[in-house]
């Protein structure tokens, strides 16, 4: 197995595997300006979203942390923030926050610009092109895996994911951790039924408490609005597919996290400070979950998808792997690693893990994933519910 990859050196010891310019909306009112700038700047991605104003408390801080995290991600060379001017998520504050990563960052507000959005598009393109030409001067260098943060996602799962692609991802994740890197397992709603196993693997009392607490809160708070989270899993479709109990379903999910000890539990979009395997309190929605992983600093994400999913992330390349022979055939344009040969040929989970590792190294080195080639760049931010009860 290859043990180094080529990347771009960033300040503060970080390494990017892509060299993008982020054009980031601080608020949804200016999304069109952001998109127009990104269209005309080489290697630029438009980071647009429907949020940034009318938010408060933990919900506001969560969105702020996520947007700043996307700008700080080492795959981004520099960021141009586009604001409106009156929003409560100020572009200036966002620029200060992203500035802590010591990378180029600029901010502009439409309301502070004579000529409004049209003038700002022109200015943004000019500044963006300058940033892109600076970025182009960087040469790739070789780095070890202690510089990597890998996200472990699954979506569009079927009963096959948990016995094919997921355990293979677990072997890859263990390898990253063994080599001194970081893996992050999100989607806490799919830990239910396996808490005792995760707690056993957690190092220290704090990590153990941090695994238990969000699940307890989830179950208690959803019960207040009449939902028993524990009773809705596995779903009728899961049962028809052969999953009998919640433990069995969740074991399939957490197989992606291999066998490594668990260092701790991150908040949504929180950046890990120490090396090793982390859990992250993130929802089951793939797009929100992968946005949180990228905001936490993940340079790459492996996503297992039994039924097949086309999605990608604008900041972190998403390598998709699938164990279902039908999906691998019909949706081959979206699948990077075919894990269905565990079923159709005499391949073992270890064989697939080896193929997956090679693909990971190639993607780190610059090979485009299927989602990158096709242009899938989905972004959504998980919201802490501002009003966690029915309104009428």
């Amino acid at each position, binding site marked *: 197995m290859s043990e180094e990859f080529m990347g771009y050196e960033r300040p503060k010891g970080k390494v990017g595997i892509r060299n993008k310019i982020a054009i980031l909306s601080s608020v949804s009112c200016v999304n069109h300006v952001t998109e127009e700038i990104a269209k005309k700047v080489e290697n630029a991605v438009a980071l647009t979203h429907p949020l940034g104003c009318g938010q408060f408390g933990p919900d506001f801080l969560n969105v702020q942390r996520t947007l700043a995290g996307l700008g700080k991600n080492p795959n981004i060379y520099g960021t141009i923030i586009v604001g409106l001017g009156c929003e409560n998520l100020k572009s200036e504050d966002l620029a200060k926050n992203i500035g802590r990563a010591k990378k180029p960052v600029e901010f502009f507000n439409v309301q502070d610009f004579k000529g409004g959005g049209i003038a700002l598009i022109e200015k943004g393109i000019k500044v963006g092109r300058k940033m892109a030409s600076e970025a182009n001067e960087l040469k790739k260098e070789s780095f070890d895996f202690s510089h990597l943060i890998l996200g472990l996602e699954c979506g569009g799962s*079927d*009963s*096959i994911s948990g*016995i094919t692609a997921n*355990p293979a991802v677990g072997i890859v994740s263990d390898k990253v951790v063994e080599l001194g890197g970081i893996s992050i397992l999100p989607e806490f709603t799919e830990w*239910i*039924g*396996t808490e*005792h*196993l995760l707690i056993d693997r957690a190092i220290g009392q704090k990590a153990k408490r941090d695994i238990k607490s969000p699940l307890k809160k989830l179950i208690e708070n959803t019960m207040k609005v009449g939902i028993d989270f*524990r009773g809705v899993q596995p779903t009728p479709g899961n*049962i028809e*597919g*052969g*999953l*009998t*109990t*919640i*433990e*069995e379903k969740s*074991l*399939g999910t957490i*197989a992606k996290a291999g066998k490594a000890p668990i260092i701790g539990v991150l908040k949504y979009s929180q950046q890990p400070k120490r090396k090793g395997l982390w859990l992250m309190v993130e929802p089951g929605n793939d797009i929100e979950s992968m946005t949180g992983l990228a905001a936490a600093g993940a340079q790459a994400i492996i996503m297992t998808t039994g039924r097949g999913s086309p999605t990608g992330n604008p900041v972190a390349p998403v390598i998709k792997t699938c164990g279902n022979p039908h999906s691998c055939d019909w949706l081959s344009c979206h699948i990077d690693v075919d894990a269905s040969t*565990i*079923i*159709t*040929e*005499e391949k073992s989970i270890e064989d697939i893990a080896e193929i997956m590792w090679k693909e990971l190294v190639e993607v780190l080195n610059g090979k485009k994933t299927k989602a990158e080639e096709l242009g899938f760049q989905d972004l959504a931010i998980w919201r802490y519910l501002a009003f966690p009860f029915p309104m009428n």
Partner: protein
Amino acid sequence: MKKRFIVMNSEDNCATSLEVILKDEEIKIKEDKIIKISHNIPFGHKFALTDINTGELIKKYGQIIGIVTEDIKKGDWIHTHNIKSHYLERVANE
């Protein structure tokens, strides 16, 4: 050759089918272990590798996935009719 089933961990007492396996088929688990299947097993469903009594635990991935509610014989289909989650009881007892 197409694989017909998978055992996730050497400690497991069940296997998962990778295609429909019909009643009375004989499945070779190892060189010296052949199991006669007693029900039709749908794709992705589980069958027993040994006899497992009521109250005993079912293991997949080397981990407990449920508790037996009705005696299971080697080759039996394992699903909601003869095992149940062990989770809610465990949480309730905490």
